[in-house]
């Protein structure tokens, strides 16, 4: 299989070992351009922020456990729910999706890396720095304007101090990171597919990554502009959101939600892609209606740009605008429903193996149906006027984003953990995690539907006794601690299996897609020779793919320190902006230039 030269340099079998892929010192991780390592960095960072955001949620639930509680002050409470929302969306769920894009997309399409490996490293470091920048606000003043920071609450007049500045500068860094990553993945999927990997043969997860990438490329500019205008108002006294000067605060809402609604699909489509991989594997049956599932995902992407004003029914846009956005919102439920029927039809008649990834995927379907149904309810403006800004909406979006996205992403973690680490996770601990999480989740969020319909407002610091809110709030608080407790099983399983888990082998689930054709963990070059694909399910079909024998180890791009340098320059620029030091702005711009030039003139292969 290997020539003597290749065998001398790095025996092919040796490169399959854990050390061959993930070994090396800290410096090799800092300068890495390997999509698998970057995926792992994304995943571990996102899980850390997920825990932090979860702790913030627990404090919120403690504060609301009974009437007139005083666990935290109202100011800190506002900071907690702002940071909880911002963290979960931008620092936990999105980057967990990015972790899977990174690790899996090149493997699924038969590529050795992404199209722009150094740009990929840059995305990760900028995400990390953006998250750290946002979190450093706790040492000064944390933002307290809610995750969608409505104007003119965010103006200097109503939000003096550094909190909002940390918020929009942090989001700008994170937005740039997401944009660069999305451009990279769009081009990787369009351009680096192995021969025979036609678009309509791509695994569903890769398809949904492609749709998500285009959503990010086209949706992020709107919030970039919205945040820039906010920056102009706060730093330079511009008039964009100043009513006295003729400014319109509703402009912010439009800009935010033109980004914000596609963002919802940016959060859910990767999870739908994961579920579309897991269900066929554990039913041992190809995905039912593959083209329809693909087109539904693409359709969701398109219609996702035409529904944003359903977040603004209560603003008073008028009956025509409300009717149009009500109709588009109801229409977008159709492709979503189509997907659910396709997943059910995939299971129908299959040889279902109830393993942990399957349980999470199944939990996703059920929870997402509940969240989807309450979503269709407030697609109707009259119903929405009753529900908006109440706990009903809090219940709805947690069913979609936690019951949906997070269940889906954890299905993905359990499903691909063996591929990423080479070890199997414990089924018993995984099932404890699943059932406790499912029960805790429902005890936490289901009562919120009733609380909302009874009139409990969203973002409320506390409530008076005698309003009938107490019992269900107490239940929600108890549920949230059960939910948090369930994750102890996950982390125990996660770390224990690294050491004591059984060897996974190449394809422990007998799955159909290309990433399962190579060793676990994959060697750093993924595929020693590029496969030719002949089927939608290459590992199941007779003669589904062909891979010529290897005669040498492929050359991979060398590591580079410029991506982290460039990201650090942008972090420095944000620090300069928030500390209002003009000289520091100059230093950071110079730094960015040096890093950009160093990057440009450094060869990829050395």
């Amino acid at each position, binding site marked *: 299989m290997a020539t003597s030269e290749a065998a001398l340099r790095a025996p092919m079998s040796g490169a399959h070992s854990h050390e061959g892929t993930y070994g090396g010192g800290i410096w090799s991780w800092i300068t890495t351009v390997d999509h698998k390592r970057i995926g792992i960095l994304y995943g571990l960072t996102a899980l850390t922020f997920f825990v932090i955001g979860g702790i913030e949620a627990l404090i919120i639930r403690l504060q609301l456990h009974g009437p007139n509680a005083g666990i935290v002050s109202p100011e800190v409470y506002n900071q907690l729910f702002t940071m909880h929302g911002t963290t979960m969306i931008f620092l936990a769920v999105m980057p967990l999706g990015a972790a899977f894009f990174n690790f899996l997309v090149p493997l699924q399409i038969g590529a050795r890396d992404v199209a722009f490996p150094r740009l990929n490293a840059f995305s990760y470091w900028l995400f990390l720095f953006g998250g750290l920048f946002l979190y450093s606000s706790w040492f000064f003043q944390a933002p307290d304007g809610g995750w969608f920071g409505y104007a003119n609450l965010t103006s200097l007049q109503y939000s003096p101090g550094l909190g909002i500045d940390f918020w929009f500068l942090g989001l700008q860094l994170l937005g740039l990171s997401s944009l660069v990553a999305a451009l990279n993945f769009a081009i990787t999927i369009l*351009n680096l597919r192995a021969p025979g990997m036609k678009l309509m043969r791509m695994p569903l997860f890769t398809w949904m990554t492609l749709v998500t990438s285009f959503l990010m490329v086209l949706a992020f*500019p709107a919030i970039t*502009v919205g945040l820039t205008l906010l920056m102009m108002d706060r730093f330079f*006294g*511009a008039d*964009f959101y100043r009513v006295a000067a*003729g400014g*319109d605060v509703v402009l912010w809402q439009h800009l935010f939600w033109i980004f914000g609604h596609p963002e919802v699909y940016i959060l859910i489509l990767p999870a739908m892609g994961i579920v579309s991989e897991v269900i066929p594997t554990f039913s041992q049956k190809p995905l039912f209606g593959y083209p329809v599932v693909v087109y539904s995902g693409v359709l969701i992407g398109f219609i996702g740009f035409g529904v944003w004003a359903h977040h603004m029914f209560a603003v008073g846009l008028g009956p025509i605008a409300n009717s149009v956005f009500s109709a588009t919102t109801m229409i977008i439920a159709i492709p979503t429903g189509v997907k659910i029927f396709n997943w059910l039809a995939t299971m129908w008649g299959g040889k279902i193996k109830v393993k942990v990834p399957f349980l999470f995927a199944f939990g996703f379907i059920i929870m997402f149906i509940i969240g989807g149904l309450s979503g269709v309810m407030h697609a109707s403006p009259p119903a929405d006027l009753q529900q908006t800004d109440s706990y009903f909406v809090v219940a709805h979006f947690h069913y979609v984003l936690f019951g949906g996205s997070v269940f889906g992403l954890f299905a993905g973690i359990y499903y691909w953990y063996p591929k990423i680490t080479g070890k199997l996770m414990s089924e018993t601990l995984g099932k404890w995690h699943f059932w406790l999480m499912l029960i805790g989740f429902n005890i936490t969020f289901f009562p919120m539907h009733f609380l909302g319909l009874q009139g409990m407002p969203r973002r409320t610091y506390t409530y008076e006794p005698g309003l009938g809110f107490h019992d269900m709030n107490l239940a929600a608080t108890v549920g949230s601690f059960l939910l948090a407790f369930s994750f102890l099983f996950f982390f125990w399983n996660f770390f224990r299996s690294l050491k004591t888990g059984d060897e996974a082998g190449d394809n422990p689930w007998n799955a159909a897609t290309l990433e399962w054709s190579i060793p676990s963990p994959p060697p750093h070059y993924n595929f020693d020779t590029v496969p030719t694909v002949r089927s939608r399910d290459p590992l199941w079909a007779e003669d589904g793919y062909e891979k010529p024998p290897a005669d040498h180890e492929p050359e991979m791009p060398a590591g580079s320190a410029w991506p982290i340098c460039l990201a650090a320059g942008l972090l420095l620029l944000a620090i300069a902006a928030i500390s209002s030091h003009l000289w520091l702005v100059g230093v950071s711009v110079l730094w960015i230039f040096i890093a950009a030039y160093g990057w440009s003139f450094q060869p*990829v292969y050395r």
Partner: protein
Amino acid sequence: MSQGEAAALDHEYTTTGQPSRKMLMWAFIGSECMFFGTLITTYLVYHGHNVQGPYPKDLLSVPFISVTTFVLLMSSLMMVLALSAVQRGQKKWTRVYLFLTPFLGMIFLGGQVIEFTHFAHSGLSLSRNLFGSTFFVLTGFHGAHVTVGVIWLLTLWVQSLRGKLGPEHSLTVEIAGLYWHFVDVVWVVLFTVIYLMQGVHT
């Protein structure tokens, strides 16, 4: 992206047959369309909402900007000629056109500096009124894009002087050209929306 990377990657197999770098620039331009589209929409939404002067009709000079617009459009022509010269391996003309393109861009930027200074002296600023806020942010972002393009093209020009920009690097020039033409097209829209349509709404 570096010369070495360019040479290494341009000959790699790609699914579409198009170089990935070029597709990246097109996708980036798609994102930029949304960016400028949002800024232009903001400008139009706020048009005529000023609660105090100076107003657009007091300040905007169509003849002056027509001249700098013409200069910027000519720089696009120079860009086309520069790419053609690189592809044909005409070293001397590559240097000439790769200098003229950013040079004309700098003249445009100079015009913007003169215009901004004049407006500032007439009392317009970011914080004066909505016209000031929207005008300076929209044209300022365009000017920043032109500045990045000028630096990029001057870098290529220096590379050509060092003899490191042969026909094998024509893709590098082509991609810079895509960016440059896009920035020029944005200006055509801004010129229409800000200067030519100033009387439509008020």
